């Protein structure tokens, strides 16, 4: 289990961004590398070396699982990103997918990710980490309007009364089967932990009014599926690293903590030093510098990165909760702003 190592890193004041995409794009052939397991693995190794970390965080591309799932349903690759189910796939289709999800030959991109994991797993001193989207966030990508049925279901309206709720439940079932299959593949390839990214598990999709009124919709849509993933990881002696950069309520945070992740990565809207009391003592809090704003020197000048890094590190040290300073999400390469983004990542890594 990585939990002990993560706690040790936290106690050492470790700092690391999620930033493999930045290193990938320092290479001229980034697109080709994404389709080549050995080369992609080398990028992940290079990323860990560059950021002086044993944590081999991979590329966070949350589009892959949707493509993987829709391939099974015969959706052409070029249509995947804009595709949404118009009606719920039948129970037979869902069962068939759940039964065969692991048998389907992985796509070129997924195969490369698995190859990269195998490559990283062979490197001494590195902790290979898999990455996948969470079941609810994948569900939201399969529907043209996911908010309305979540709201309907949260109001106690069942699938039998509303076609949207029926579609939501069907998509959730498919998404869980897809993510479980991808997690198993990652573990088979050598991952010792998997980053499960659930950015949609937030109050845009789930009304805090409904949750405060006693609705179990967050439990049904987010927690129950992720509990299945946590159980799978535990059964394979692997760790759950859980990520949600959306705006969440305190009760959502406590629910995430109930998954007992070894690391919990949160968005910049959270005050981690206040969140610490709501999270298990052996869950490392990770984040949460506003890396989505690193591109902007007006909003997030270098000096502010320095200030916020120092402030966050000091507050977390004072509260005593295990903490690793990092980014609120994957720090992406943006060609027009590449230099300033890299400078801010360097700034994050530099201790006072």
């Amino acid at each position, binding site marked *: 289990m990585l939990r002990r190592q993560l706690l040790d890193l936290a106690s050492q004041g470790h700092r690391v961004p999620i930033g493999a995409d930045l290193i990938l794009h320092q290479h001229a052939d980034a697109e080709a590398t994404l389709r080549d397991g050995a080369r992609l693995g080398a990028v992940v190794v290079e990323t860990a070396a560059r950021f002086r970390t044993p944590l081999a965080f991979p590329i966070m591309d949350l589009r892959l699982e949707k493509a993987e799932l829709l391939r099974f349903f015969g959706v052409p690759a070029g249509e995947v990103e804009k595709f949404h189910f118009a009606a719920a796939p039948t129970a037979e289709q869902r069962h068939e997918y759940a039964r065969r999800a692991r048998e389907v030959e992985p796509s070129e991109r997924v195969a490369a990710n698995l190859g990269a994991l195998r490559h990283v797993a062979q490197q001494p001193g590195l902790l290979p980490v898999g990455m996948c989207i969470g079941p609810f966030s994948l569900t939201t990508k399969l529907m043209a309007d996911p908010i309305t049925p979540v*709201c309907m279901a949260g109001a106690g309206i069942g699938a039998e009364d509303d076609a949207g709720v029926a579609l939501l439940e069907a998509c959730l079932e498919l998404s869980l089967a897809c993510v479980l299959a991808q997690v198993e593949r990652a573990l088979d390839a050598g991952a010792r932990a998997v980053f499960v990214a659930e950015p949609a598990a937030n109050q845009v*999709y789930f009304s805090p009014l409904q949750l405060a009124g006693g609705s179990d919709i967050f439990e049904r849509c987010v927690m129950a599926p992720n509990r299945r993933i946590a159980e799978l990881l535990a059964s394979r002696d692997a760790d759950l690293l859980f990520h949600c950069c959306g705006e969440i309520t305190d009760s959502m945070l406590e629910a995430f903590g109930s998954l007992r992740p070894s690391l919990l990565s949160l968005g910049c809207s959270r005050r981690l030093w206040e969140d610490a009391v709501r999270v298990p003592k052996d869950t490392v809090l990770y984040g949460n510098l506003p890396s989505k704003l690193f591109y902007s020197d*007006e909003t997030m000048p270098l000096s502010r990165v320095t200030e916020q890094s120092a402030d966050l590190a000091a507050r977390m040290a004072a509260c005593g909760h295990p903490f690793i300073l990092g980014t609120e999400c994957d720090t992406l390469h943006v060609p027009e702003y590449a230099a300033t983004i890299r400078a801010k990542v360097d700034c994050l890594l530099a201790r006072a």
Partner: protein
Amino acid sequence: MNELVDKIALCIERGKVNLASPYPKDMKGQEGADEFAKQALAAGVGPDAILGACNDGMQRIGAKFGRGEAFVPELLMAAKAMNAVMAHLKPFFQAGTVKPKGKFVLGTVAGDLHDIGKNLVSMVVAGNGWEVLDLGVDVKPAKFVDTVRANPGCVVGLSALLTTTMGNMAATVKELKAQFPNTVVIVGGAPLSAEAAAQMGADGYAHDPQAAAAFLGKFAAAA
């Protein structure tokens, strides 16, 4: 007649679309915005009064949203109820009996397929009496330019969720301002801030749909 107008506003505030809609649960089985709009028109209520009810309902839910007493799902349901009413008013807009406050050209910038924020802005702005020309997602600068050319005096709204598309958003603003210096452009999305919007050359920044509607309201008042 006022009672019908009040009912329309209430249905919008509560997100009660029509009789068939089971939402909200405490109004299940009751008539909704759709039925009351139909009844109001049949009873001779003027379309302007019905449009006013839309504004009232959306402003009430918007105020709750601003106070943290309602959230995106409630706002979305309200917008759906409002859309049901607007469908009845469409012929009056087309005939010129009811005049929109202006035209709002909206789209998610090139390279970005996210539409939840854009759609919410579209519905809330429409509920505030604007004609919305929604260009969809992954919209190239040329399409914005062509639409502005065809709709002089419109306001443009650009949406994005991905940091990676900030360059595309800046390029779109630049292109619009180069061709139509007086066209007002407002931007919004997770990676944005007022400072970043200003740096791009945009005239405004909206952190949520209500802010977009408020910005347009000020623009309309000043025009």
